[in-house]
């Protein structure tokens, strides 16, 4: 199941609707559905904010294969980006030293079972996989 969305934070509502429809049709349990919503938002907003050279819509795809929920986002006609390769945030810092931001990819990486990136032919493709073992699919 795939849909393309306008490159704008205003499209987030439609992205959530897309994830929720998929979760309902495939009877994905709430824990996995929550993870899918969060991963979709964090990756989508990352594309909107950092791949500013891209003007095309962003494709979001969801599949269930081999007991795993697979979320894939594709950004077209964008410059190379160092996506998701930054240092992990220090979550042990005290309040006064905690920076605002920089947690999105950390959250996704912590909540899914794999997160992979591929950049070819000016297209960025990011795939997050959440295992559905022991879950009610």
């Amino acid at each position, binding site marked *: 199941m795939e849909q393309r969305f306008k490159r704008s*934070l*205003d499209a*987030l*509502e439609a992205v*959530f609707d897309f994830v929720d429809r998929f979760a309902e049709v495939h009877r994905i349990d*709430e*824990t996995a559905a*929550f993870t899918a*919503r*969060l991963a979709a*938002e*964090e990756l989508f*907003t990352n594309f909107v904010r950092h791949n500013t050279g891209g003007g095309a819509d962003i494709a979001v795809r969801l599949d269930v294969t081999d007991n795993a929920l697979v979320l894939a986002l594709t950004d077209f006609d964008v410059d190379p980006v160092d996506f998701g390769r930054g240092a992990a945030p220090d*979550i*042990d*810092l*005290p*309040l*006064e030293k*905690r920076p*605002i*931001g920089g*947690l*999105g990819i*950390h*959250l996704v990486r*912590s*909540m899914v079972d794999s997160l992979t990136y591929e950049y070819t032919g000016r297209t960025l493709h990011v795939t997050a996989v959440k295992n559905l073992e022991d879950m009610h699919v």
Partner: protein
Amino acid sequence: MFEMSRSDSGHLAFRGRLDASQAEKTRAALEELRESCIIDFSGLDYISSAGLGVLLATQKRLSESGHRLRLVRLNRHIRDVFHIAGFDRVFEIE
């Protein structure tokens, strides 16, 4: 959809989904806070890093004057997000 309301007792209540599209207006509303405040999360279904950023900025600002946010009635998924972000160490959570 995200909504924020204030009770007669002065507590704030969040409802819906605090995502990146709602972060700026939430940040603006929380900038009105000048004292410690309890936020009831029982109606909040979802939060992302954008929402966490808004809460962290508010907590940092309030702490400079000796005040703080106290967060109550978080659902299990939101509690997990706070734990992964290490926010359970910079917020008082009940």
